[in-house]
């Protein structure tokens, strides 16, 4: 009797559970990357007239893969003036990359700011 009641109750919620499971499967199996960025660094140019080199660690903690856009900014801490450069990289599932770009800017004190976005 109790088993019958439990089966009946499961029967009520089964369509909803199936629907939610289908939606979850669809999204998780067709999902793209979920990128995060950390550890932005800037290297001063080795010689006058050369560009600054900005790097950051880009991590994908999603089971999905795909192309992401990484935006690098150099902000002058005195004037607030910014210089930017973007790059596109492809991330695999669980992959971590060190991404870097060269940004041409006049000599100064710069703070690196890096953001990553998906979809690019």
């Amino acid at each position: 009797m109790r088993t019958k009641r439990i089966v009946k109750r499961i029967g009520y919620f089964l369509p909803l559970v199936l629907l939610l499971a289908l939606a979850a499967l669809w999204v998780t199996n067709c999902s793209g990357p979920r990128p995060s960025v950390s550890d932005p660094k800037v290297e001063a140019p080795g010689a006058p007239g050369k560009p600054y080199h900005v790097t950051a660690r880009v991590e994908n903690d999603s089971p999905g893969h795909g192309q992401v856009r990484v935006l690098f900014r150099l902000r002058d801490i005195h004037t607030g003036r910014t210089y930017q450069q973007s790059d596109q990289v492809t991330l695999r599932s669980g992959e971590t990359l060190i991404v870097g770009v060269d940004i041409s800017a006049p000599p100064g004190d710069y703070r690196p700011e890096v953001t990553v976005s998906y979809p690019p």
Partner: protein
Amino acid sequence: MPTFIERAIREPDVETPQRYMQRVNRLAWAFLGLFGGAIVGIVLVIWKAQLYVTLSQRSNVETLTLAFVLIFFAYLVVLSAPGALGATRMLYYTLQGRRQANWEDGERMKMRALGSAAREPTTAGLNLAIEREDRPGEPFALPVTDGAGSMGEIIVDGATLIYRQTISEGSNALLAFFVQQINRILEQRGVTAGVDVVEWKSIDDEATEEYLSLTQFARNLERHLGAEGLWPRRRLTAEDCAELEKQLTGVCPALRNEAFLPRWEYQGQHQLPLIPEPLGLISLNRSEKRVDPLASMGCAVVIVLVLVFVLALIILFPPWVPGV
């Protein structure tokens, strides 16, 4: 006799006063869920608008779909707002009632909050005529009242069932409850029941008037010819009526709670396209004369929750799109 599914759509969970109360509580939660779910949906779409717009454009889905989703949620907010407000009031007065010295005072508070009736009574047409054994052919009334006060009366006049309420609007669900009680009592006595509501005046007044005139015509003809039973009927004993009164007393608190909620009384239509559009060669169609608000609102809540779930899932796991 209606099947389980048909009953679940027309009049779910009104077999006993306790179940009636559960149904009202579920309906209140459905309104709150619909309102809250739609608000969450709007917030998600606006909060992550950039993500959804980019995804829709990159995946060849029209961005207009997002506008449709927003309008859909906004529509549901407007639709469910009176219900959510009613459910909140119901909850407030239920909690206030628990603080009173006795439950009757709490129920009276609800009645004062609901105000007096100004609407016309709720009427339904039965497939069979109902009459009392001791007063055949005469209409009879059963009070809907308990210790906290009167909620009105149910008048049975042949195949006409009228709920004359004292507060707020009437309730079709009460009439459905009443009919289920008649069936249960008759079956317990070993009499063939099969009483069912076939017309609801609040849903289709013209068809109900037409049908009730026809049943009245049959009764007039019976009297004129002196022939009993031209229109099929069931007879209730005095004990049956006493049992019905007892059940109606038990359902009064649920009726007061229900009166806080709006009445969503509509017909229902279910279409099952076997060969869908644009061909649309075969489509199955089924309609119900009344869909209980719990069934309709419950379906809407499920749809909203699924949609909100998918929106949230897209935020957590954005779908793959081709690179640029």
